[in-house]
C-alpha cells in the first residue's frame, strides 16, 4: 500500500500546502517563509514532488499551529499567485456557498 505521503507526492501541477489552524480551524496556507497565511494568494507554490515534500515536512513539523496539512492542487493567476483549483478548495477559501438560516 502506498503511504499517504507518497501519494501526495504524485503532483499533477502547481501545488500548495494547506491546513486548518489549530486554535479555530480556520483554513491556512503555507507561505514560502514557512509561516501560515489565511490568504491563498500568499501560499508557496511548488511545482516538483521534491518541493512539495519539503513544504509538507515543514508543515507537519508545525502541528501546534496548523493541523491536517495536505498538498492541494492550485491554479496560478496572471500575477503568479495561487488560487483554488477545485470546488472543495474554493469552498475552503471562500466559505460555504450558502447563506445560513435567515
Amino acid at each position, binding site marked *: 500500500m502506498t503511504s499517504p505521503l507518497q501519494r501526495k507526492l504524485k503532483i499533477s501541477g502547481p501545488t500548495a500546502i494547506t491546513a486548518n489552524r489549530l486554535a479555530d480551524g480556520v483554513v491556512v496556507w503555507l507561505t514560502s517563509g514557512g509561516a501560515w497565511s489565511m490568504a491563498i494568494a500568499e501560499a508557496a507554490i511548488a511545482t516538483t514532488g521534491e518541493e512539495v515534500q519539503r513544504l509538507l515536512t515543514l508543515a507537519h513539523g508545525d502541528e501546534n499551529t496548523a493541523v*491536517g496539512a495536505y498538498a492541494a492542487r492550485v491554479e496560478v493567476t496572471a500575477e503568479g499567485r495561487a488560487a483554488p483549483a477545485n470546488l472543495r478548495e474554493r*469552498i475552503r477559501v471562500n466559505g460555504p456557498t450558502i447563506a445560513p438560516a435567515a
Partner: protein
Amino acid sequence: MYVYDAFDRTFLQERVAEFRDQVARRLSGELNEEEFKPLRLMNGVYLQLHAYMLRVCIPYGTLNATQLRALARVARRYDRDYGHFTTRQNIQFNWIKLAELPDAMADLAEVGIHGIQTSGNCIRNTTTDAFAGAARDEIEDPRLYAEIIRQWSTLHPEFTYLPRKFKIAISAARHDRAATRVHDVGLRLHRRDGETGFEVMVGGGLGRTPYIGKTIRDFLPKEDLLSYLEAIVRTYNLGGRRDNIYKARIKIQVHELGAEAFAEKVEAEWRQIKDGALKLDQAALDTIADRFLTPDFEALPDDPAELATALANPAFARWHANSVVPHKVGGHAIVTLSLKPVGGPPGDCTADQMDTIADLAERYGYGEVRVAHEQNLVLPHVRQKDLPAVWRALDAIGVATPNVGLVTDIISCPGLDYCSLANTRSIPIAQKLTQRFADDARIADIGRLHVNISGCINACGHHHIGHIGILGVEKKDEEFFQISLGGKGNSKARLGELIGPAIPESEIVDAVERLVDTYLELRASPAETFIAAVERLGIEPFKERAYAPR
C-alpha cells in the same frame, strides 16, 4: 422529561473539566494532534472544512425549554447564531473555536447536555420516535428504554473501542417513525399474548454498503433488553472486522455470517448472561420511569370552538392539515415545526428561533420540544385550543411552512459546504428544489414524497431510503448526482433503486421535477402516493422520463 440525578450532573462537570485540561494541553503543545484527536472526538468535536464542529447529543430527541435556550445561547456566544439539527436527533454547531469549546460545553452541562456518544467507535446515542409519549398509536413510551440503554452504554468499558460506530433505534408505535430497520440494532416494541416485548433487528445500515436489518428475535421480553443487547454488541466486538474500515460495521458481519448464524452466536452468549446483573426487574424499570416527568395533561374536548373558527382561514387550515397530528390525550395535538423553509438550509435553526420555540413550548406545550430525525422540531403536547396562537407565532419566525412529509421536507446532509468528507454539496440542491416546488397548493397535491440528499457515499442524508434519493458524486472536479427511486425507511423499509447514470448539477432539479410530473401523470388517483405509484409501476416509466431529451 427525564431528570438527571446528582451522579449524572457530577459526571458531566468532571467531563468538562477534563476536556478543558485536554484543550489547554493541546494549545500549549503538551499534547500533539495524534494524542488529542481521539480525546476531542470522544466529546463530539470534529474538525470540518473551515472550523471545529461540535455535535451535541440530544438523548432520544427530547429537550426541555431550558435546554433549547442553552443551545440558543451556545449558538449566539460561541457560534454564528445558528445550529443544524441532524438525522440522528442531534444538533451541530459549525463554527466553534477550540479554545472556547470547554466554555460552550460547560454551558451545556449546566442543563444536562453534552457531546458524548456523538462520535467515535462506541454505542452512539439511541434515537427514537419524535412523537414518543404523545402518539396515539404508541404501545408504550420508548424513551424509557432509550434512557435505560443510555445508562448502560455511556462509557461502557467493554464497548468504548468497537470495530466501528454502533447505532440503536427504538420504535414503540404501530408506525415506525424511527427508521429502526436501517440501524445497527433496531428495536420494535410490540404486544404478544398480552405481553409487550421487542422485535430485535440487526445489521441494518446505509452508507457504502446499505442493508435492511434482519430480525434475529421476534419477541424479547423487556426484562432481557440489556442482556440481549450486551450479547449482540459482544458478538460484534469479538467478531466484527477491524482490518478494513469499510467492512467494520455489524451489517457486514451479519451479512458475511448470515443472520441465522449470527443469531446463534448471540443466543449462545446471551444464555450465559441473561440471568445476571443486567436483568431489568420491575423495580429498576419503575425507578427510571419515576425520573421521567410526564405532563399533567388536562382532559379537554377534541375540536374546540377556537380551532373550528381558525380553520376558516385557508392558510391555517393548510398548516393544520399538514403539520398537526392527533395526540393520545383528548383536546391535544402534536405539532411539527418545519425547519425546511423555501430556500433555506434543511435543519438549520437560528438562536432567535430556538428562543421563541422555547418560549412557545413553555407557554403552550408543557415545556417540551423534540428533535425529529427528519431534521424538524416538534412540540409534542399542544392544547388544540391554542393551535391558532401557536401557528401565528411559528409562522412569524418562519417555521410553519406547511410541507411536513412533502416534497420540500428534504432531508439533507451538510455536504461539501461544511463536511470534509464530501464529494459534492447537498444543501444548495435542497434549496433549489424547495424553490422549484415553492407553491403550497402544488406540493399538497403532490402529496407525501420524501427526498433525501447525501453529499457522499457515507449517506448521512439517508438517500437510500428516500422515495427519491440523491447522491452526490464527483467527476473531474464537477458535481454530479445519482438518483435512486422507491426507497423507504418505515416498517416496510426498502432500499431505493438507481435509475441510471449520474446527472450534472445544473440538471438535477429539472430531473426531479420530471419524476414528480411523471408521477402526477401516471398515478391511479390523487390518493395513490408517489411511493405507491413507484411500487405499482416499477422504476421504468420514471427512468425513461428522468433524463432530459438530448
